[in-house]
């Protein structure tokens, strides 16, 4: 069947070339399969990649102070369990022509330069204060602490089997002036809206 060997139609009747290229393709394909069968990425690796990926599906408000920065900062507040994984994941990446960098901050006040802020579980005790500090600053807040989206956060990592999934609170994002792409919402495990006060 032709479908299994597109090289034939690509290279026409040059059968020798076809045979060579088919062999080469086979080798390359098996190489890529080997590559695909690399050890599964760790939870932190996945989360680090997702932090970067979120950045590609969000529009920040014009007045967000982080837009003035030359780089696209993904910040970690609190105890950093990513260590170098985040730096490795972001190495060489760009968003909107700006290089993506990882920053570690210790106070919510530093979050003004961040596009994405990962709030470590270690900061759960002062979450309310943190969110009040960055709530309207145009920063995408992400965390893996439970009930994060019910407590004023925007995106919350969860587990679903052995997959890392995430939930979204649109109301909280809108309060922060952020617009989340429908593509992002499509793959969110839940999309939550806070009941309108008095509404």
């Amino acid at each position: 069947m032709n479908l299994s060997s597109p090289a034939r139609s690509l290279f026409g009747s040059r059968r020798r070339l076809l045979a060579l290229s088919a062999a080469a393709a086979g080798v390359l394909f098996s190489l890529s399969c080997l590559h695909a069968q690399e050890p599964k990425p760790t939870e932190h690796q996945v989360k680090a990649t997702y932090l970067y990926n979120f950045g590609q599906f969000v529009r920040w408000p014009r007045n967000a102070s982080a837009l003035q920065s030359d780089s696209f900062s993904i910040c970690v507040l609190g105890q950093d369990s990513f260590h170098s994984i985040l730096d490795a994941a972001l190495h060489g990446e760009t968003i909107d022509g700006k290089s993506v960098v990882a920053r570690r901050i210790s106070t919510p006040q530093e979050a003004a330069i961040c596009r994405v802020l990962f709030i470590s579980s270690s900061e759960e005790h002062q979450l309310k204060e943190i969110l009040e500090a960055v709530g309207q600053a145009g920063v995408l807040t992400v965390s893996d602490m439970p009930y994060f989206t019910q407590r004023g956060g925007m995106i919350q990592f969860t587990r679903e089997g052995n997959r890392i999934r995430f939930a979204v609170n649109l109301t909280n994002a809108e309060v922060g002036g952020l617009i989340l792409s429908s593509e992002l919402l499509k793959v969110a495990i839940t999309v939550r809206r806070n009941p309108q006060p008095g509404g």
Partner: protein
Amino acid sequence: MLRVPDSSISRRLTWMNMLVSGVALLLSCAAFVAYDRVSFRQTMVQDLSIQAQMIGSTSVSAVLFDDPRAGEETLAALQAAPNVLAAGIYTPQRRLFAAYWRGARGRDLPLPSLPLRQTQAHWFGDGELALVRSVIFEGKPVALVYLRSDLSQMNARSRRYAEIGAAVLLASLSAAFLISWSSQRAISKPLVQLAQTARIVSRDKNYSVRATPPGNRDEIALLVDSFNEMLAQIQSRDGALRMAHDSLELRVQQRTAELTASNNELEAFSYSVSHDLRAPLRSIDGFSQALLEDYSAKLDAGGQDHLRRVRAATQRMSVLIDDLLNLSRLSRSAIRRETLDLSALAAAVAEDVRKSDPARRVEFIIAKDLAAEGDPQLLRVVMENLLGNAWKYTSSHPQARIEFGASQDNGRRAFFVRDDGAGFDPRYAGRLFGAFQRLHAATEFPGTGIGLATVQRIIHRHGGKVWAEGAVEKGATFHFSL
């Protein structure tokens, strides 16, 4: 009613038009279908490519956030595209991420082996169009989309086009037939009418019919006009010819009747004259004889001599009248033709002639076995006259020779009688055959001048010809044909 020939010009014109329009239509249909097939393939590739791009762009987040279900949901939208058989989304590492099969679920869909760097391809094969597109997001390849579309749509389209083409062809040919049938009549109708008219003319010899000229002024109208002009000329000439012929016929009849009447009158006259002349002549001869016998004692020798001269004259006149009667009878009696031996006839007549003066030394040379067709009695008269003349006009010579034989006259059989006697002056040859025409004095050679006239009349009545050659004292030759 004249039947139109099987391959009439109208039919040929119609077929010619049909053929031209049919071929033109076929060619244009074929060209159109070929062009459509090519362009439809391109369109199919384009459409499928767009579908792949759209699937790719709406499945970016699913791939990036490792959500195959979302990818499958995206692919499930392809149910609205009945031509897509199967679709797959693959990671850049070419691992299957989400698959879609029309009318089936959960089947594996292996990506065809492509060279690693090649991320754009499409190919036709086995009733399918397959296409691979790379999905680029933020400048990076994030996925591969693989689509398989069946060509039944294209084949159905081709079939529909063929059907439409056939219908159009049929309708156009019908229209072409009707148009051509009605428009060719402008050309063929006058031609067919012209042919019918020509046929009527040649069949009935009727030059009064005219071809109907067509309405417009073209070559056919010119042809019809010329044809009619020709017919008119023939008709007028025909009429003139017939009139001349009729009047000539009438004149000939008139003349013939006049001639016959005057001829009959003349003959009746000469017959009655000859007949009536005999009675007084017989009286003269009878009374002269009575005078000689009863009154010879009272008449001296001179008177008796006069009376004898009177008697001789009356007897000569009696012969003359007999000859005249014979001559006029010749004109009336019918000729009966039979084959006879002219040589034997000549010999018999010569024998009779010799008996009149057996003392003369005359040599007869008569050719043997000359046969001829004619009336035996009349030809006997001819031979008697000719041989008698020869005998008579050689009488002044102590020795003579008379010949009868055959000769030729312009390829026709002729006969002759030749003597070596007194002959005649050729200047007067034309008068030889007239009645009472004599070239010699009666005292020199006796005769009535009727003989050759009789000969000529008999020969003429046989449809023949008679003529003479001769010179004074060199003899004469009389030729005749029958």
